[in-house]
């Protein structure tokens, strides 16, 4: 819990002073209020409008959804919910930015690669950002993942890592690794004897999920790529602080530079909703190329599927796409991941909701992987897809 800690949970890297911790706790309290009380007000408003104004309460076509959204966005209580969704998040970015800037000199120094490192850091200053990254600040995060304010900057990575606990309402574990643990549990539930020797994590940011693979597959060689240099530098610094050997490199997941067939397991954690319709099959195609025959690819995504959304849940989810600079979010809620995996050449592709797990090895259980229609739109589960390269 934030309140107990002298330092934050970003692996004890970031110092939190008294007032700074109070600000984090206020952001958490405001987030909870917005996600519960205000969200309920918005939901009740929505249900009443659907009752009185809509004959087709299924709201199951693009046209009816967009009609509902326009109608509801004229309601004052819903407007408050929308505005407050933006406000608590923005306060959090600012609070975390202030904390990081106060100690940025030290963080930059601590994260600098050294001769005793167990892992490594390979940056590519010439990397071309894909448009879906360069055109938006995902999560309305001022400066986005890529802005650098000084040489060897870690600012944006540290701010992102610091914000995670409040952002996800303390529901991703003290080390923010539940997405990694959940996906590992899913993989071991489906393939109990699988022991990957070489693992690649795509879109790793600061490596919070990657660290789960270090824990559960201690003998594996672990690589992690992302386009953000500040996140990779900070992730490398955190991994070294924890004694984890992760090989970070700055790469676009559409065109990674590893050798074909090099990996046994390729994973991602909430990567795809920050890509695009065109990038999705390319990334999956690269997973296929980089895996050895018999290798597995598995991906965890936000638990937002159109099949299980009520009208209000559609509004809650589509807020991210329409108002929070997540341009691929809405299209992805109806995307057929299995068809995409089949088209890329994979076998045994399966998609569904995996219950959130704190320890992927201990908690692995195929009964916790449910069909898409039984998913919930909260962080008690995550959407997953996994598949095998035939061979």
């Amino acid at each position, binding site marked *: 819990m934030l309140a107990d800690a002298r330092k934050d949970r970003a692996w004890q890297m970031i110092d939190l002073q008294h007032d700074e911790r109070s600000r984090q706790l206020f952001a958490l309290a405001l987030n909870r209020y917005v996600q519960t009380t205000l969200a309920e007000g918005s939901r009740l408003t929505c249900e009443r409008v659907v009752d009185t104004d809509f004959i087709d309460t299924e709201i199951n076509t693009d046209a009816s959804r967009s009609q509902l959204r326009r109608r509801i966005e004229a309601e004052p209580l819903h407007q408050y919910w929308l*505005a407050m969704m933006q406000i608590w998040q923005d306060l959090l970015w600012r609070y975390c930015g202030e904390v990081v800037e106060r100690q940025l000199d030290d963080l930059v120094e601590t994260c600098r690669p050294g001769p005793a490192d167990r892992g490594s850091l390979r940056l590519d200053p010439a990397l071309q950002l894909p448009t879906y990254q360069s055109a938006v600040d995902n999560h309305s995060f001022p400066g986005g993942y890529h802005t650098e*304010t000084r040489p060897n900057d870690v600012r944006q990575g540290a701010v992102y890592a610091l914000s995670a606990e409040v952002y996800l309402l303390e529901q991703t574990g003290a080390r923010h690794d539940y997405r990694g643990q959940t996906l590992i549990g899913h993989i071991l539930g489906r393939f109990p004897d699988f022991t990957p020797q070489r693992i690649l994590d795509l879109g790793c940011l600061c490596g919070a999920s990657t660290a789960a693979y270090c824990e559960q597959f201690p003998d594996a060689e672990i690589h992690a790529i992302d386009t953000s240099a500040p996140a990779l530098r900070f992730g490398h610094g955190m991994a070294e602080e924890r004694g984890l050997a992760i090989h970070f490199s700055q790469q676009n997941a559409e065109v990674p530079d590893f050798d074909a067939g090099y990996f046994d397991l390729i994973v991602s954690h909430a990567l795809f909703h920050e890509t695009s319709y065109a990038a999705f099959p390319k990334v999956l195609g690269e997973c296929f190329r980089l895996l050895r025959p018999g290798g597995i690819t598995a991906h965890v995504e936000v638990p937002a599927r159109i099949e299980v959304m009520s009208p209000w849940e559609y509004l809650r989810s589509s807020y991210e796409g329409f108002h929070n600079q997540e341009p691929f979010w809405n299209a992805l809620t109806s995307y057929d991941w299995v068809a995409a995996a089949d088209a890329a050449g994979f076998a045994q592709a399966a998609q569904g909701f995996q219950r959130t797990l704190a320890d992927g090895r201990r908690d692995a259980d195929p009964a916790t992987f449910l069909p898409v229609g039984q998913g919930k739109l909260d962080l008690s589960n995550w959407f997953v897809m996994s598949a095998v390269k035939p061979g």
Partner: protein
Amino acid sequence: MTDQQDHVAYVRNGRPAFFDDPVNDKLLAMIMSLLGEICVLRERLDAQERLAQAHGLWAPEDIDTYVPDTEAQVARARERDAVLQRVLKVLTEEVVRLRHE
């Protein structure tokens, strides 16, 4: 503020407005920011009073009669400016964004 720092001081493409009058979006943001500062302040005061009393130094009544000296007044002015910056940042942000977009 350098140009590089500017780029982490605004969100690309601007912020959405949800109320009929976008002035209200900014006002609500400022009120929430103020609420945050009040919570922080109350916790800091609470820490002061508990620490002071635990060390047998002073009780809340002593604060009512306290007059700050010059050094304290300068420090308070600096802190006040920082609070203002924090609360009014939704307006500052718009200015910074207009510099670049």
